[in-house]
């Protein structure tokens, strides 16, 4: 029964989305209030319908209703409850349902929080949002119906891929989708602005919170994905420049560029066309990411589907969305006049540089990701583009970007004083050179890239902190004055400092773990001790243990430095029964200074086990840094100037306080 209800509400959602896509657009053109206001109700109904469908599917999973094909294929009655629920989106059909649900959720958020938006803009935004929804709902209903029945129902399901039975992965797709789909809002705003033929600072102020939110979710989503790869795949790596990873990294880079260019539109009324284009590109890359991952073009754990009908549908959808929006852009963009002038050395100039480097990096990654697909389609040759390509192109573009990240915030709008900035950043330069010098003195064979990476880390952290202390005039007057300045500084300024420091921490984590990682690979017998990265690892043997839906060989290691008590590590080699599959569970002891990482392999038949032990200095800082970046974004987002409808409320409040003080006086 739940499946039929789910199916029905999904169709209802599609019909609503079609109406939402068409009527408000006509209403905005004819200036008809009722037709424009219809968008709000439609957004609500669409959201309610998809929520109901999502609940139906979840009920199917929780009750293990194997008469639903999707549940039978992806669940199992013995699976822990968390994974029964995460199984809802751990497959192709369910993940698309989640995508559509988030799309509708964001549409509803615009309807509810966008009270201050001009009626026509809001109607157009919601209608574009509705049209994107139509595409996804049609895709679900025609090619990937999660509510399809199977008759006769199997006695039990075939289970979820054990690699996906993991808390990190349970939350990785929802966050990534919140980011991907968040970019749909900026896309809708961009299309609406093109239809209106008007982009102004107010537009940028409405767009920026959505970009920030999408960017923050993408950051967390990508970080969770790489963390999962790090501990679940058992290879010790955390980023492989795999096409699926690139598919999420490209929208992130585009969103980062958009975040910065929207500031220029907001503050200086310039770079409008570029910002619109970026908004279109960022969402197009999100769609492309979905296409790459979901169509089965790529060979990866993520590729659930290998049905050509789906590939053709998504390809058509991509052509309509990307082609259509770029066509509209081509027609409308020349009509929009650019605003304020500025010199190349200025805040705007720095942000343009940021955008240039970020979009060039995105383009090189896009090329490397799509090239094998095109080559295969045209010549049939199978190639892959390896990490060396991405490293050789991305790193040289990232270095000037990071150097500029410390400069940019110091520069004034319109016309900056480079010499003045250099003199204020002297301290950062000196300290980072000192850091590099000390490391080189300690270890003269340190690779040059490691010195560059650590130098950039020092430069960016100190540069960001200097800019922050400059703003609050720390030590240039009484501390109380600095405190007052600090509390009065807009939260978005604090947010920028925090996010930039987050980037620096990621650089630290990457550089240090790549440079100073040590490992031991070999067969160990119980009682044997090896020394890795200053720790003695004693192997205490292995035993067979039973988990809820697997059996495992669990090894025991004691890692100690001789000073501390030591920690036990329990890596496992698991054998799942449904579906039959083996996985490696690395045992990781994360610490701020280094991670201890142990993997156990097969027995060699003579009582020894193949083991791999890593000591990875500072690697946790990659994820800490990503989280700090997210915090920076969240801090900016909490800035009341960015809140939709804040301007009006703030003015009312001021008026209220004034009348109050007037009464007092």
């Amino acid at each position, binding site marked *: 029964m739940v499946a039929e209800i789910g199916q029905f509400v999904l169709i209802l959602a599609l019909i609503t989305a079609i109406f939402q896509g068409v009527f408000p657009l006509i209403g905005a053109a004819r200036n008809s209030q009722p037709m424009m206001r219809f968008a709000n109700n439609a957004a609500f109904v669409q959201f309610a319908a998809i929520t109901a469908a999502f609940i139906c599917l979840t009920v199917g999973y929780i009750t293990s209703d194997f008469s639903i094909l999707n549940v039978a294929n992806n669940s199992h009655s013995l699976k822990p409850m968390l994974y029964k629920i995460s199984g809802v989106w751990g497959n192709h059909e369910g993940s698309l349902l989640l995508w559509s649900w988030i799309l509708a959720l964001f549409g509803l958020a615009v309807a509810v929080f966008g009270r201050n938006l001009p009626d026509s803009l809001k109607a157009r935004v919601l209608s574009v949002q509705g049209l994107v929804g139509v595409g996804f709902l049609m895709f679900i209903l025609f090619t990937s119906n999660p509510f399809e029945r199977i008759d006769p129902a199997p006695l039990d399901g075939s289970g979820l*891929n054990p*690699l996906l039975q993991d808390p990190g992965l349970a939350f990785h797709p929802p966050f990534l989708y919140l980011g991907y789909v968040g970019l749909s809002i900026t896309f809708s705003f961009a299309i609406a602005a093109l239809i209106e033929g008007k982009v102004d600072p107010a537009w940028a102020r409405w767009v920026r919170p959505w970009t920030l939110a999408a960017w923050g979710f993408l950051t967390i989503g990508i970080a969770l994905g790489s963390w999962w790869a790090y501990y679940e795949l*058992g290879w010790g790596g955390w980023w492989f420049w795999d096409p699926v990873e690139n598919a999420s990294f490209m929208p992130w880079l585009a969103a980062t560029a958009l975040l910065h260019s929207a500031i220029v539109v907001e503050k200086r009324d310039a770079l409008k066309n570029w910002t619109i284009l970026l908004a279109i590109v960022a969402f197009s890359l999100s769609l492309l990411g979905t296409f790459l991952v979901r169509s089965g073009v790529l*060979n990866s*754990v993520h590729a659930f589907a*290998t049905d050509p009908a789906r590939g053709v549908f998504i390809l058509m959808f991509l052509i309509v969305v990307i082609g259509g929006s770029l066509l509209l852009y081509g027609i409308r963009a020349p009509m929009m006049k*650019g605003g304020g*002038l*500025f*010199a*190349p050395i200025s805040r705007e100039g720095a942000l*343009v*540089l940021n955008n*240039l*480097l970020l979009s*060039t*990096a995105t*383009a*090189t990654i896009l*090329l*490397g990701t799509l090239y094998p697909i095109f080559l295969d389609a045209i010549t049939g*040759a*199978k*190639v*892959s*583009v*390896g*990490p*060396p*390509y991405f490293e*050789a*192109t991305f790193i*040289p*573009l990232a270095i000037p970007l990071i150097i500029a990240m410390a400069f940019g915030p110091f520069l004034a709008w319109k016309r900056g004083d480079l010499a003045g900035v250099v003199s204020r950043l002297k301290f950062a330069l000196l300290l980072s050179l000192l850091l590099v010098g000390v490391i080189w003195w300690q270890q003269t064979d340190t690779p040059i890239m490691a010195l560059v990476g650590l130098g950039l880390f020092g430069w960016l952290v100190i540069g960001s902190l200097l800019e922050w202390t400059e703003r609050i005039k720390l030590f240039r007057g009484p501390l109380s004055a600095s405190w007052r300045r600090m509390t009065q500084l807009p939260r978005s300024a604090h947010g920028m400092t925090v996010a930039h420091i987050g980037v620096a921490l990621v650089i630290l984590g990457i550089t240090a773990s790549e440079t100073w990682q040590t490992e031991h*690979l*070999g*067969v160990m017998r119980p009682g044997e001790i090896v020394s890795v990265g200053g720790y003695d690892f004693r192997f205490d043997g292995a035993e067979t243990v039973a988990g809820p839906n697997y059996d495992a060989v669990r090894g025991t290691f004691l890692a100690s430095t001789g000073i501390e008590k030591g920690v036990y590590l329990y890596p496992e*080699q698991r054998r799942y029964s449904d*579906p*039959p*599959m*083996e*996985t*490696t569970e690395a045992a990781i002891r994360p610490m701020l200074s280094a991670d201890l990482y142990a*993997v156990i*392999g*097969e027995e*060699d038949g003579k009582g020894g086990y*193949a083991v*791999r032990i890593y000591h990875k200095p500072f690697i946790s800082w990659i994820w800490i840094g990503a989280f700090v970046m997210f915090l920076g974004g969240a801090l900016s987002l909490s800035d009341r100037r960015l809140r939709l409808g804040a301007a009006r409320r703030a003015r009312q409040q001021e008026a209220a306080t004034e009348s109050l003080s007037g009464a007092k006086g």
Partner: protein
Amino acid sequence: MTRKKRRLYFVLAGMSVLGIAAALVLTSFEDSLVFFRSPSDLVEKPIPAGRNFRLGGLVEEGSVEKNGVVTRFNVTDLNKAVPVTFEGLLPDLFREGQGVVAEGSFTEDGVFVATNVLAKHDENYMPPEVADALKKAGQWKPEGDN
């Protein structure tokens, strides 16, 4: 500064960044393209020693020999076979008779030294390149398909 002059600066900056990027792409692209070859392909289109590529096929039955953490095995498309050595922990689903993709290069004496071995992620899955290679070799048995 006039609008035109500003535009000129941007165009120049943009061109120079794109130029640098193009140079980076061109210099690194050729070297980091990793070709895929089946054992039979190697007869027609050999790959010089030292050049990185991906070798795909089935792990030949009875060919796996383990010595500590070093494993020797043959990758075959059932027409030709290539000897492979790999030092490290093999993926969970590495089995005789199963599909495998090994990345690495030939030594001078014709042994393929793998730096990375990818096996399929679950029992029913065959890497598409391997499936194609087997089809080409006329050895494709569709019941192994997903």
